[in-house]
């Protein structure tokens, strides 16, 4: 652990915004089964009740509705799910991840199983926003840094920096939950289909 970690704990700014190089390790302490050495986290306010948002997300098969790079999430029984994610040149990559943390209306955590090509773990928390303004949804993702081989695979795979991907996915989740649809500038269905590819 690097120096200054105690300071991360002593102030109120979230660890994901820390300038300390040891921030991923600190965040990992909070997770049930952390994997990866790079950390990203984003919070979005959604004008809907906590439980409704949790329920939508917990039905993991629905994630492709707002995670545009995820093609399918299939339940394999128990707490295991097979993720199929879009890769360049029309290909896909798969891995199996287990739900390792699940408190209804509060938090869902997951982590990839041993041997996955793309090791990653994450958690999404649902908290009441202050002042009765809906729910704060915080997604935290740990993944191997782009320096590692796996990290490079991820970056290619996601076709974007994971931080950008998480930010955009959370915006789409908000749109879907608040408005019932995902905003698009496409004005024909063919254009929309092209955007989704």
């Amino acid at each position, binding site marked *: 652990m690097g120096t200054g970690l105690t300071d991360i704990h002593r102030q109120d700014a979230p660890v994901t915004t820390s300038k300390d190089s040891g921030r991923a390790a600190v965040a990992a302490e909070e997770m049930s089964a952390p994997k990866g050495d790079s950390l990203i986290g984003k919070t979005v306010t959604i004008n809907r009740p906590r439980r409704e948002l949790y329920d939508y997300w917990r039905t993991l098969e629905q994630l492709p509705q707002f995670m545009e790079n995820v093609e399918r999430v299939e339940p394999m029984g128990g707490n295991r799910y097979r993720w199929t994610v879009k890769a360049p040149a029309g290909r896909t990559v798969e891995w199996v991840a287990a739900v390792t943390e699940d408190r209804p209306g509060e938090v869902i955590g997951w982590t990839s199983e041993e041997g996955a090509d793309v090791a990653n773990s994450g958690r999404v928390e649902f908290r009441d926003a202050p002042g009765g303004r809906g729910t704060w949804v915080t997604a935290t993702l740990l993944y191997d840094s782009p320096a590692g081989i796996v990290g490079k695979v991820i970056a290619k795979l996601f076709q974007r920096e994971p931080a950008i991907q998480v930010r955009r996915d959370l*915006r789409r989740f908000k749109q879907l939950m608040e408005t019932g649809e995902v905003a698009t500038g496409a004005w024909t269905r063919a254009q929309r289909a092209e955007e989704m590819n």
Partner: protein
Amino acid sequence: MRALTWHGKHDVRVDTVPDPEIVNPRDAIIRITSTAICGSDLHLYDGYIPSMKAGDILGHEFMGEVVETGSGSTLRKGQRVVVPFTISCGSCFHCSKHQYSACDNGVPADNQDIAQAAYGQPMAGLFGYSHMTGGYAGGQAEYVRVPFSDVGPIVIPDGVEDDKVLFLSDILPTGWQAAEYAQIEPGDTVAVWGCGPVGLFAVQSAFLMGAERVIAIDHFPHRLELAKRFGAETINFEEAKTYEALLEMTGGIGPDACIDAVGLEAHGFFADNIWDQIKVSTFTGTDRTHSIRQAILACRKGGRVSMPAVYGGFVDKFPLGAFMEKGLTLKTGQTHVQHYLPGLLNAIMEGKIDTTFLISHRMPLEQAAEGYRMFHDKQDEVTKVVLKPGMDLSQVA
């Protein structure tokens, strides 16, 4: 369908493009009957707005007939509607506070990155106004896809002609919001920079809100004449020194409220303006700002500055010291159109507000490129161009 498309600076063309379709449940498709060219469109025409792509369909001031509805739309086929230029969801925190132009959900997630980086937070979507505002196809076309059609469009009663209500889409509520933001008190003198459509509606609105005097500033005699018809006093900035004239006309005090309805294309040969032009042409700055500087300097101490005018980026030589020392209040923003629609439609129906005086030219959509050229080159007599997709050439006045 036919539509006016953007291809670069001073290059717009009427092209054949795919017809719009219902893409999302809350969409409606409108067959356009009237669609105007706006001062804001000139910023696109002059190449000041970033994130435009060749082939983008322009136009954000339009109305027409509902021809198709998605499962979540509350409109019915055959209804006539005016559509706000802002695309707002109606259900986020900002929409619930009627801050429609600050809607969280109007812009597709990927496009939100641009405004997030430039402004700190993403803004509402706009029709036909670059990819930063959503990349939505605009309404200078035969048909348009209208997202969130259950929230935005206002239904127009039968028998009310287009020309009376078309400007509910943007410039009438914009002029009204500008006057409201000036927080006019009895006895107030209000100065308005720019006698384009926004400035002229701000003049009209300021009187309706109880201003004692309104002083309108421009250099086009015909536009100043229109302001005079509403009872405004006028300053032609080419013939008089604006700051000196304003102080003399207010007994040395300055106007109680100042409205900047000019924006990033301020005209005139002022030293600071020429400096701004050099910087715009060398990409070291994006905005020219003479009118807002003048408004801040002329405004009386403790007064209000309202800025409907559009500025896109960073501004140099903004007189922050004067602003602070004098204790001014500045209110600005894209218009929360949806908030004002019911009240302003009523005012039109009751004859309290007339908007038809503004229209100087009506032409078919096919002549849209010519309309842009005229509006750009002959601003004095061309106060507003309305394109009518259904009109044939023999009807041109």
